[in-house]
């Protein structure tokens, strides 16, 4: 069920007008201050990804605790 929702989200993303996502070159936050915010964005993505993974890992531990208590 989850993956179907993900597929729908992907298709919906394709339907968005690209101008919404596109950014005019040489302006905006990302291009300011020597593009340092791109680096901040990259670090943010990596930390978010690792934290998401750890969250899922924690859910596994909770499941494990539940199994152990049932035993």
């Amino acid at each position: 069920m989850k993956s179907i929702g993900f597929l729908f989200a992907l298709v919906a993303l394709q339907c968005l007008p690209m101008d919404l996502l596109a950014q005019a070159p040489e302006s905006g936050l990302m291009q300011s201050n020597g593009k340092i915010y791109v680096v901040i964005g990259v670090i943010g993505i990596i930390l978010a990804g690792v934290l998401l993974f750890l969250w899922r890992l924690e859910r596994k531990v909770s499941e494990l605790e539940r199994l152990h208590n049932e035993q």
Partner: protein
Amino acid sequence: MKKHWWKLLAAGLLLYSFAAGLLIPLGSGIKGVAPSYIQQAGLTTLQLTTYNTDYRADAQAGNIKARLRLNDSTALCAKSVVAPSGNELQMQFDIPAGKLPIDAVASNNKKSPFPLLEIASTQNGYTSVQSAVAFAPMGDSIAPTSAFCAIEAYSNGDRMTFPFLNILEETIRNLYFHVPMWFGMMLLLLISVIYSIKYLRQANTVSKGGINAKTRYDILASSFASVGLLYGILGIITGALWAKNTWGAYWSWDVKQNTSAVALLIYMAYFVLRGSFEDNDQKARISSIYNIFAFSMLIPLLYIIPRVVDSLHPGMGGNPAFSSYDLDNTMRWVFYPAVIAWILMGVWISSLHARIRVVEARILAKMEA
């Protein structure tokens, strides 16, 4: 504590790579040169916009040297340099009439950097920009040698900086965050395939504490593959963000982008495959074999095809990924520790993942028994 030393090392290296990667300043850089096309001989003023500089004190003390290198041994030196503001320079050149000896092809057959505009100053160090200006043809006679100046050494002083490259600018620091994801992914997937091979080679022994060694190897293989896949996904997303702000689009259908996306899809299929079996032994056996095929696909996808075909990524055209130009010494001292840190972090997370699943398998086996 003795067997946990590498986790402390991972934390230390990670902190070091974040701190050094973000705090070491960029060297001074040249963002723009105007005019870009010189049509006439005689006195010409070039207006420069610079980055991360303050040339005012240097200009007042007469400590700025600038030249236009035409080839390895010939240059036009600036007659005067003034700094209207910290990030601006005006320099006057006396362009001789006649043909200028500009080297069109560099010695290693690469695109020539000439005319190379070079600046050295006491406080702001050395900086340069390749193909800074273009010259209109100015007659057929060779320009007089008296117009040129001798090449003296320009030094960067003892400043510790990361190189300023146009377009990249501060995003050169992404080297310490985006690239270690790929190095880490490669190593984690290598460990994963080693466990898959161990699984296939291991005899079916009697189970110990609920599960046998074979099952443990299979769990380890899939745990390392899942963190490897996580690193790959983070690598491709961070790469897209970086590409948007340098190459101009999230996805430019660059060969390395495409092949790494295919590689990730292959590994996603590994997990789809694992999810599609009811029987644990069958799941483990078939996915181990698939893992070996998947890993052997990585080599041509990530290491061979991108080097044969033209790519926006560095390292195309047969060279290893980093030439001396792409990675200078200061960057090496941050980049390699970052790679080691992220690899150790990946191994740590993978082994946690695997240990949790081993315990889970043991409890389930006990419940069945």
